[in-house]
């Protein structure tokens, strides 16, 4: 089934693994959860030899173990879970994995935008049916959150802070009273949440101040802050993991040389430290330089090499993709990249050699083209 989709949700993609884990799971399960908390942790963080399992479970989310544990425990409690962090830190991916492991449904998602209304959280009406038959449960269109309530599963709310305050406040009663009333109906006018219902929301910490959460709503969420991965080893793991997935999805057979991966990681680490020491916004790149951004650069380079190159990933292409992806503002971003290329990459290519000289050349060309 997952072959028919461009991107299969986690519960479809890992259906077989989840089935197997469910079959061996003998731990206590809260509410209607499909897996016990320990098994969910195992599913997300992968298995060790010491776990004594018959098969290996791959690691799907890379980060501190305690974040996953705290998230799972929050969902087993009375509160909603709010994953907060910089863009590209894997919040949504973690939310998807959690939903898939807990209830095998990660698709009940509301995307928070400036245009999100209360209807998207509660319910709306099928206007033609209302005209034809009047207001009834049949003519009502439940929102993903209401569907999750009815099914006792996890509902997801992406980018909570992008939606306006009145929309956010609609969540308060859902999280407190755990029901939604439908005043338009005379009977059967309350939808109660079934055991197992909870909400995983994500929020971008760079959007702070756009639509700040009210204290009442904050109180109903447990916050788990996901930091940007700065550990080079874990970052390499993540990039490798996601790139392999991308290659599989695009059915591309192409090797990513470890030296090039190192160059990519090193460049991002350098640019991050430069951004950390910058004193104004003009001195740092607009990009958050997250791990997702790295994956984006690598994906771009791979696709470029595959379709326009000789099917070998080269440092020159990587440099071009890096410049292309990170230079968003002209001239600020280009100036920073130019400074980086001449101040850091050039000395390094002289000192370290390897693929760096080619990387230097590729970057220069790309900057020259864009300037």
């Amino acid at each position: 089934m997952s072959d028919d989709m461009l991107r299969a949700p986690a519960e479809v993609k890992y259906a077989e693994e989840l089935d197997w884990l469910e079959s061996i799971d003998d731990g206590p399960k809260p509410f209607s959860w499909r897996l016990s908390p320990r098994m969910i942790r195992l599913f997300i963080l992968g298995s060790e030899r010491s776990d004594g399992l018959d098969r290996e479970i791959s690691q799907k989310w890379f980060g501190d173990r305690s974040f996953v544990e705290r998230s799972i425990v929050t969902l087993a409690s009375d509160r909603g879970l709010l994953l907060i962090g910089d863009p590209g830190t894997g919040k949504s991916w973690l939310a998807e994995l959690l939903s898939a492991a807990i209830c095998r449904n990660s698709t009940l998602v509301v995307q928070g935008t400036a245009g999100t209304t209360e209807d998207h959280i509660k319910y709306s009406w099928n206007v033609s049916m209302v005209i034809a038959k009047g207001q009834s449960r049949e003519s009502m269109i439940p929102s993903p959150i209401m569907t999750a309530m009815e099914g006792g599963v996890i509902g997801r709310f992406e980018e909570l802070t992008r939606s306006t305050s009145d929309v956010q406040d609609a969540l308060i009663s859902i999280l407190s009273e755990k029901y939604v009333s439908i005043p338009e109906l005379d009977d059967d006018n309350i939808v109660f949440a079934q055991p197992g219902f909870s909400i995983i929301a994500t929020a971008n910490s760079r959007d702070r101040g756009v639509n700040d959460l009210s204290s009442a709503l904050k109180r109903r969420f447990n916050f788990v802050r996901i930091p940007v991965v700065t550990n080079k080893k874990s970052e390499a793991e993540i990039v490798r993991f996601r790139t392999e997935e991308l290659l599989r999805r695009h059915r591309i057979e192409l090797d990513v040389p470890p030296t090039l991966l190192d160059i990519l990681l090193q460049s991002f680490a350098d640019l991050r430290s430069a951004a950390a020491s910058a004193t104004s916004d003009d001195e740092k790149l607009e990009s958050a330089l997250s791990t997702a951004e790295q994956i984006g650069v690598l994906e771009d380079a791979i696709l470029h090499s595959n379709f326009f190159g000789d099917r070998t990933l080269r440092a020159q292409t990587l440099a071009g993709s890096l410049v292309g992806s990170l230079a968003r503002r002209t001239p600020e971003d280009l100036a920073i990249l130019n400074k980086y290329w001449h101040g850091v990459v050039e000395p390094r290519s002289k000192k370290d050699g390897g693929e760096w000289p080619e990387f230097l050349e590729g970057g220069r060309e790309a900057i020259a083209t864009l300037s």
Partner: protein
Amino acid sequence: MTGQTSPFGSLREQLLEAAAAFAGGPVTLSDILSGLVDDVDRALREELEIFPVCHHSPASALAMVRRLREKQPKVIYLELCEDLQPLLTELRNCRLPVAVQAFATDLDGFPASWAPLSVVAPITEASAEYQAISYALETPGVELVLVDRSTDHVFQWAPKEEPQKTHKEEEAGLHGDAVGVEIGDLRPRFAELEEHLLHHGKVRHWSEWWDQYVEQPLSGADYDTYRQVMVLIGSLFRRLTPDGDRLTVDEDRERYMWTRMREHLAASGASPADCLYVCGAFHAASHVEQFGLRSTAPYEITPRTATTWLYGLIPSSHSAIEAQFGLASGSVSIAAATWAKAVTRNKLTPFQLAGQKGARKRAVKLPAPVSKGEVADRLTGFLSRPPALDELDEAELLGWCVDIVRLARRNGYLASTADAIAVFETSILLAGMRNRARPTPYDFQDAAVTCIEKDVVPGRRDVRRLCEILLGGDRVGEVGYDALPPLARNVYDRLAPLGLDLEKRTIQRALLDLNASPELVPCSDLLWMLRYLLPHDAVRPIMGERRLGERSIQESWDLAFGKHQRFIIELGYEGVTIEQVLEQRLRRKVWDHKATAAVALAAVEDAVLFLGSRRFADELGARAVELLAAERSVDDAPEVLRRIRRLMAYYRASEPELPGWCEEFATAGYAHYCTLLPTAFVDDDTGVRQVAAMLGFLFSMESLALALGCDRAQLELAVQQSHPEAPAKVALLWAARNQLGLLPLAELRSRSDELLANPLVVPSFPQYIMGFVQALEPAPSLSGFVVEVISKAFGRLPDSVLLPWLPKLITTLRDQAGELMPALVREAGRTFPGGLAALDAWTPPWSARPKPVASGPAPVAAGPVNELLMGHPAACDAVAELLGCAGEWRVPETAAGADHREVTALLAEHPEPALAVAGLLI
């Protein structure tokens, strides 16, 4: 899921995996495993009972208390630097944690760049070593012997490279840059092994791993089990230690300790059965050939270097210990809390030094000693059986939850009872997920962060830090008065009249009314000295200042001695009194090879201000003369000029005559700056400010220098030899020539006008102005001319030159001519009209037509001066003749007193004062 049923099954798995993953090379897994058992066997069979410990481990301390009560040894050998022994008895005067410190500034045998050397060994109450020390010092007939290498050897064996200095937080920096030594260092020796253990143990940091896999299972274990498990862990880390400097040092230490113990046993004749050797578990599994009392392998202990070591106690804190030894934040506090609880739960009476501050009094009555039976294998059982899990202590957890919410609320969080409930529930769920029935402090901390921490931290502390405070908090030790070095005691004694409790850790405000209570003047003097010597947070004047020739009537100070006790104690290593330390510091400063004349003058000033010793100030001043004569650069000239002017003004005002060194300084400086002047004028690296300061020195010291035998021709020649090219310096030279009378003001004016009229030079005119402004230093009488030049520049310079230059003018004036500005502004105020209305009719004085010179000689006013001169004309005639000036005496036109009508009227109106003065004189 099979391996997941017991936490200890997982430990064994981890040990096997760690061995399998890292024992590459010739050592095979089976060798390691059998070696572990061999090590345990060997340590337990040793005739001298070895007590393996781990630092900051409550389990070790508990086992120590139990064992000491059972065995009651007569001699205790402790793994601690042997030269620290005399200090241990002083621990009773302190509030723990404190650190025993060895300190050396006079190095002999070590690179001079290492100075000062400092070694600290922190001691907490919840440690096995403190139990051993207390037992030994409080029980009659028990001897405590420290057997580890001396602090001198710590550095002898250290790699000869520069120690790295790191910045630490306030509390965490209590130990300064000292090297830490610790009893029972037990931790994987390479990062990969630790990472492996943490990863497989599913914990975040080492302290949590230790707590879960060793501490908890061992806290209630019997002595044999404790010993065997500790040696096993020590042996594991030892066998997986890569060869390197650190292992070599450890082995040398073991040789040292065994040699010392054998020596002691031979000398004292004590029976090994009555002795106990307390050492880190790592050393209990030692492989050196000197291990064991039966060994006869020789080991030669190298003599100490001639470095003089000084010893003392300094306050320490849990966070300082964590920072020094790389432990997780809060882990020492949690260990202290665990210890306190275990003591109550197990109804144990720990040992304690009599008179120990900040602890409950506990009388320890020792039961009759129990002899120990044969060693049985407890290891197999221990490793194959899951440990008895602690039951959930609901009351304790509830207490924590309620307290953390209260604490969070006080720190600005919007936490409520609902949060307390959520934290409680989450703690239990998290502990369950991590295979524990009873949430550990770490589980609780995670739960509190999850439920209370939101997107921003409202106050200074986040929830994680609040949890640490709740679970014991950072405890800061204090060294008691009796354990302080003489200098520190002297400081406290001398400040006693202030009536403040200086041992408190809060800031104390001292108010000194020096007029009303002159007895506080010595306190004020001492505070100023401490201000100079201690970090500025420790002693901060709020009101009052001390400058040359000034004294405050009232002073108010913020004193934080409790917080900065370490610095006062470390001053004690330098001398017996504050005055002595200050004198040494100042002397060291001026005799340093990098010292300059400005530094020496600053030292003279400090000596006058703080010590008031003329002899010492003269000594430093003589050094300043030497330094000035030897200097080849004039970079410090502005500083030298400022300081020598201030000092001379002070001496002139307060002493009958200038000190000899000041006169020497003036003559030496005159000659020195005359010599360097031509070079400084042309040297690009020497700034105009420096040259101005040189000229300032030459002109202002001229009268003194000439009186002392210098020749003015030297200065005139030096000015004539100067041919600067930079515009600012050219302007400065013109000003100097004007001051010397070589260039009349009219010519100076015409030259500057020419520059302004020349379009080729106009762009560089601002630089000429800078030169003229700087010239105010040597030639203050030119201020009127400088105002004129600046006014003309503002009036005539084209906008393209003027506007870009203006911001630069302001910044340069602020940076380089701050002290000259008031004079310039005053002069400008005199020159320009005061009101707007007057501006239209105003003509600049320099553009005004010169007034026609009045014909005929000026009228001669009558007065006492003229009367005197007329009465004794010989002197004036002689001077006139010498100067070649012909003239004649004229009689005043009016009668005496005619011009002083106002004065006469005043006197007539109020004759009383004049009559009183007359009466007085008669």
